[in-house]
């Protein structure tokens, strides 16, 4: 527009925003750093801490700096134009195995655990898992696939295979990883396992079809845990792909999860227990044939045992559908509800609802309630005139209507899990064989 501008950003995001500014071609952009948090503070606290406060980085008054950002002439560096060519550095690294393990750790190519070193021989062996050209572009990934907030890195079939080797995968797992990493035809972007968001999201996969047995995915006791080679290494590979193919998970720049999420290590990998589920498989409900190999992607807060909710009233007569409904009513607006039912719980539900669709309709939660979220606070009499200007209301994300129900696990007790995971899309795995 040709109009000077400054963005107000919390100082904790300094490193991230400097990298972001470089990526969008304006490394000298004049950002105003302030003391956070802003959310949940009162007007008086914000006036004291920010408006009349100092930039926590420079120690200088915020409003004085804003004035200078608009009036100080541009420096030579800020006037620089042209193009910065970049590459990914060396194509290979040479050293002893011990040296390479150390180097990969130092370069943050790993998840901090030892990896299988991706020698050309191992990578070529992994590539036996697909008929696709090793140089074929699979997709592009960034630390958030929402819009163009962070730059996208492109990657090939071979790049996916390298990360699959590092995670300890077998060649027969590779088509699943390629499907996961493939570009969403709606956006052209791939789905990262590790989001940049300060919320601390986790990625989740649901795998349906005969491939579950072909590669030994566990969908019995311990199904969602690290208790089978395929479940564990496929989940790990998704995170390594995010780290190396999408530049995700770098604390301070491409990872800002306030608390973090331990599930980012191997994600949530769910092979559905189609054999013991009384309902149609998840993939069939998404339009695929039964037996067809499909992986479905999700993102959200994660899941935990439904027993943790107070509404899970323990007793001799358990009304599981009602408990699900009560839990659904408690879920936040970002990701809706996700229920991972063990076969016994699914059978209890089946006794009352013939199909998942009927259950979902019955579970439909109440209209969104977002008290305080970007809702304009009424100005008081003491406020300055500008503070009385009204701000429009903010619409909802629409996550309330997103409910996913998956059946997996053992039948040794009536336990099940629930949480917030938003469905993204389903991909045919055999397209990547």
């Amino acid at each position, binding site marked *: 527009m040709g109009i000077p501008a*400054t*963005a107000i950003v919390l100082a904790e995001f300094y490193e991230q925003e400097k990298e972001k500014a470089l990526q969008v071609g304006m490394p000298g952009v004049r950002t105003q750093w302030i003391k956070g948090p802003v959310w*949940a503070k009162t007007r008086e606290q914000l006036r004291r801490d920010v408006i009349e406060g100092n930039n926590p980085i420079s120690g200088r008054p915020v409003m004085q700096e804003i004035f200078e950002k608009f009036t100080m002439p541009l420096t030579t560096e800020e006037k620089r134009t042209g193009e910065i060519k970049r590459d990914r550095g060396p194509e290979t690294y040479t050293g002893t195995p011990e040296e390479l393990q150390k180097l990969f750790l130092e370069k943050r190519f790993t998840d901090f655990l030892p990896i299988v070193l991706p020698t050309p021989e191992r990578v070529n062996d992994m590539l036996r898992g697909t008929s696709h050209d090793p140089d074929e572009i699979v997709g592009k990934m960034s630390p958030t696939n929402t819009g163009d907030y962070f730059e996208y*890195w492109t990657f090939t079939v071979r790049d996916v295979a390298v990360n699959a080797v590092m995670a300890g995968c077998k060649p027969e797992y590779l088509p699943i990883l390629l499907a996961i990493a493939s570009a969403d035809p709606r956006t052209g972007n791939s789905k990262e396992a590790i989001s940049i968001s300060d919320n601390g999201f986790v990625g989740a996969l649901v795998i349906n079809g005969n491939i579950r047995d072909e590669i030994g995915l566990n969908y019995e006791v311990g199904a969602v845990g690290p208790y089978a080679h395929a479940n564990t290494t496929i989940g790990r590979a998704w995170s390594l792909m995010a780290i190396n193919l999408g530049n995700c998970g770098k604390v301070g720049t491409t990872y800002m999860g306030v608390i973090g999420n331990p599930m980012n290590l191997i994600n949530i990998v769910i092979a559905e227990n189609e054999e013991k589920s009384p309902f149609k498989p998840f993939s069939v409900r998404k339009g695929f044939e039964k037996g067809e190999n499909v992986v479905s992607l999700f993102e959200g807060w994660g899941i935990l045992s439904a027993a943790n909710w107070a509404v899970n009233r323990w007793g001799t007569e358990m009304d599981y559908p009602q408990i699900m409904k009560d839990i659904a009513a408690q879920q936040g607006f970002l990701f809706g509800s996700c229920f991972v039912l063990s076969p016994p719980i699914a059978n209890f539900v089946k006794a009352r609802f013939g199909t998942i669709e009927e259950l979902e309709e019955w579970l439909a939660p109440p209209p969104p309630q977002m008290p305080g979220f970007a809702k304009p606070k009424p100005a008081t009499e003491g406020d*300055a005139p*500008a*503070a009385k200007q009204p701000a*429009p209301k903010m619409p909802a994300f629409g996550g309330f209507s997103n409910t996913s129900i998956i059946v997996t696990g053992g039948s040794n007790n009536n336990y099940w899990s629930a949480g917030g995971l938003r469905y993204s899309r389903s991909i045919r795995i055999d397209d990547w064989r």
Partner: protein
Amino acid sequence: MNRHISAAIIAVLCLGFFCSFTSLNDQAQAAPAEEKITVLTPLGTPPSIKLKNMAPRLDNLKGKTIYIVDNGYPSSDLLLTEMAAWFEREMPETKALYKRKGGFGFESEDPALWAEIKEKADAVIIGLGH
């Protein structure tokens, strides 16, 4: 006689010890140092960066109009209306207008507001980047 036998035994033992030592030494020398291997980079490829022009700066803010744009982050309305109030109080010759960006989310666009800013604004403050 006994002395000759003892000397012979000592000589044999010494020879055996020497042979054992050289054998061990040879084995140690034969064991290669940990072999170097080559591995492939696990990284994807970042795009090139095209540097953009920054807007020219203003001489001063007197008589200028600053748009203060709220992108809807929680409590940013409180912060930015307070900022507008600060300009009214501390820099009355500068006009500060608080505007709430339409749409939802940080990425959403508001073409009408951008057009208004292009026509009427001399400078823009936008928040909140968390």
